[in-house]
């Protein structure tokens, strides 16, 4: 069960590490120093912690063994700790998988989240705009978030491709998934800035559709219509010239190869999102979903996954506030009762709290503690298709974990250290 690396090298590394690493913090420092060389071979066992592995009940007196950037083993006190492993006593602490924010709004300058020259820009990648040293990432790390899903902004009808990145690490290696999702935005936001006649110079590129909710839906429908047609043509004639990149991406959605994320806040937009998806036969994840309590049954029936933005908020802040949604604290419970899969996110609401506090509020508002924690770990990992790498604490997965001062759903909880791929990304 435990993959032991070359034992001689291990022993050498361990002796070295033991000499240096007495406490957890020193160990962390040592790992950081030797991140390239020695860090790879160091095996560390975190013992006597309460471990919430994700998707499974808590282990009261657990052991987490980490090495080579991966989780080597998780178990209770009976787990055999590999010889020579550095042992870190975590009595009184709680260890969870690194949190995953499935709708993370930071990480890039706001102007670069949307290419405003067109409304439908499926081929654009938000990854191109990310700054790995943005303060938003530092805040996320401090709050125990190790992986985020960043999507283009909500000013375009079809904004482009979202990506999944770790919140720390080398800029290239932190990318977990390049093309993770396609964002579609319904509601009032995509119309903002577009002008009707008399609203600006007629030659401006902003003199265009949509200026209404109807127009927004029309843009979505046209885009998917084109994609569907392209799909049928290529299927009929294999030698036909390949469709443009944008259309090709939409066909991937139609074929179920790419996750569509539809941002819809108010009830009408939520229903529209489900209807359009039905119409073209693709499945969509509903993002934000402030009014989801009004369409909970339909969501359940469609087996849709909901990215619930900022369950703590009792109103919607920022430009999205004009969308007409009326968030309620009871939403999480209403969805959970109908077995709708809920992923808790920070999303676009300007009033959102750190992700771990959002999970705490989900718990307060009626989600069970394990469910609430799963909603920021296991569930987003599954949704984003990265559950083979992170989201749980299990052997073989990335060593993304957080050592909390107490139960993470306690308002007093702080992340004492956050590890990404086994490296300390934040230490208090």
């Amino acid at each position: 069960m435990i993959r032991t690396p070359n034992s001689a090298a291990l022993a050498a590394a361990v002796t070295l590490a033991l000499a240096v690493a007495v406490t957890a913090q020193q160990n962390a420092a040592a790992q950081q120093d030797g991140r390239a060389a020695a860090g790879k071979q160091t095996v560390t066992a975190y013992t006597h912690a309460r471990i919430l592995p994700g998707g499974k009940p808590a282990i009261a007196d657990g052991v987490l063994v980490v090495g080579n950037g991966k989780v080597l083993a998780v178990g209770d006190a009976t787990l055999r700790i590999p010889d020579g492993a550095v042992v870190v006593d975590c009595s009184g602490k709680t260890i969870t998988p690194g949190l995953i924010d499935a709708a993370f709004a930071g990480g890039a300058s706001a102007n670069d989240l949307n290419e405003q020259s067109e409304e439908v820009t499926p081929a654009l990648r938000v990854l191109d705009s990310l700054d790995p040293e943005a303060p938003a990432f530092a805040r996320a790390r401090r709050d125990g978030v190790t992986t985020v899903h960043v999507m283009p902004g909500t000013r375009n009808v079809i904004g482009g491709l979202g990506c999944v990145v770790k919140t720390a690490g080398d800029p290239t290696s932190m990318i977990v998934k390049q093309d993770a999702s396609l964002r579609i935005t319904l509601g009032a936001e995509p119309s903002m800035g577009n002008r009707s006649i008399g609203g600006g110079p007629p030659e401006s590129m902003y003199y265009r559709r949509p200026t209404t909710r109807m127009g927004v839906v029309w843009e979505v429908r046209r885009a998917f219509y084109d994609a569907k047609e392209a799909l049928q043509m290529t299927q009929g004639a294999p030698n036909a010239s390949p469709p443009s990149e944008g259309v090709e991406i939409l066909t991937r959605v139609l074929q179920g190869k790419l996750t569509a994320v539809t941002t819809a806040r108010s009830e009408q937009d939520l229903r529209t999102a489900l209807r359009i998806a039905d119409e073209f036969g693709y499945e969509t994840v509903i993002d934000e979903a402030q009014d989801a309590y009004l369409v909970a049954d339909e969501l359940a029936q469609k087996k849709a996954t909901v990215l619930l933005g900022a369950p703590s908020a009792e109103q919607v802040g920022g430009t999205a506030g004009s969308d007409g949604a009326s968030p309620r604290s009871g939403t999480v419970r209403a969805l959970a009762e109908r077995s709708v899969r809920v992923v808790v996110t920070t999303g676009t609401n300007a009033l959102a709290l750190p992700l771990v506090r959002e999970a705490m509020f989900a718990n307060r508002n009626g989600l069970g503690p394990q469910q609430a924690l799963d909603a920021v770990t296991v569930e987003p990992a599954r949704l984003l298709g990265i559950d083979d790498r992170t989201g749980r604490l299990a052997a073989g997965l990335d060593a993304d974990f957080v050592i909390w001062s107490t139960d993470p759903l306690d308002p007093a909880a702080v992340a004492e250290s956050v590890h990404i791929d086994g490296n300390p990304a934040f230490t208090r």
Partner: protein
Amino acid sequence: MMRIPRRSPLLPGALLVCVLLPGAQAAAQDVLVQAHRLVLAPDSVLTDSAILVRDGKVAYVGADIPAEARSAARRVDYGDATITPGFVVATSTLGRDADFGETAVAFTPDLRAIEAFDPWQDELKLLPALGVTAIGLAPSARNVAGGIGGLVKPGAAQGRIAEPEAFVGFSLAADARNPERMPTSLMGAKEMLREAFDTAKTGVEIGPDLAVLRQVMAGTRRAVVHADTYAELNAALELSQQFGFQPVLVGAREAAKVLPRLATVGAAVVLDTLDPEGRLATLRLPAQLAEAGVPFCFAGRSDRLRLSAALAVRNGLDRRTALAALTRTPAQLLGLQDRVGALRQGCAADFVVHHGDLLDLGARHVATWIDGRCVFGDEPQQARTATPNTTSAAGDRR
């Protein structure tokens, strides 16, 4: 002490007077320029030596000067001053961004910057007083693909084009993203370039614009890319890796975040001239780049070139690299190191004269020569053995 300039060196009138008189008589004759310290290039310094200038170029240096040429030449002796190659500005629009960027379309790689060059332009006349002897005239940063840049030089009365086509300018910087036309975002700008390079690479029939991109991919033309933030630099580096070229990154404010990659890709950096009030991280960037082995030079406010180099030195850069960043490196980045940026045989006789090391602001700027003519400051009328005019000896007690 005797030779404090009688008039403000900045007055254009003085400039013209200085320039026209010797200019007329020296045209045909060789000139032997002597000084106590002769910096041919940052790592090659001669003491009590001379260069022989013929037809605006350096014909011989130091001991290589044939005796008969030496005696026939008109002698100009700067005494104990220091002669240094003139400053080269890698990229500039000479203060006229609007003339060097098409506004309606963002993709115009086949435009030529020199077509908009005005040899009588005011800014050009000021440059000798600032020690600048050559400028890479570049399209502005407002277009994603701005066009082809060339090399121009200030002159005695008017400027001249020294090289019409030297490099091609791109921009991923904030200036290139305009909310009134495509692209409005960095994603859009990168996508635009990626698509263009892709078409240039794979396309069968390509127009003159994409042909320029082909030259970039073939390595026959340097690509100069404006990029400031991490995301912009990252996009530029990704494009260069994908399409196989070595970019010269202009601006590169956050270059510290991509230092190791810059070195591996073989990129060079044209930094904005330093603002003395700027963040310490910016002031230390030159030293960091030097340590990482990334070639860099300064461009931006040409009146701050010398100050920028001095500030960089104050913040940890070695004097040799600082001097190179004003002279040799920009010439190399434009692929013109055989023409300008050093006082080697065959290079243009562009140099500046200071009393002391020009990286100390206390060193007085005495003269600037371009193409073998003194275009700014004093040209000593006859050879003198020594000048007691050192700053430290200059008395102030009256």
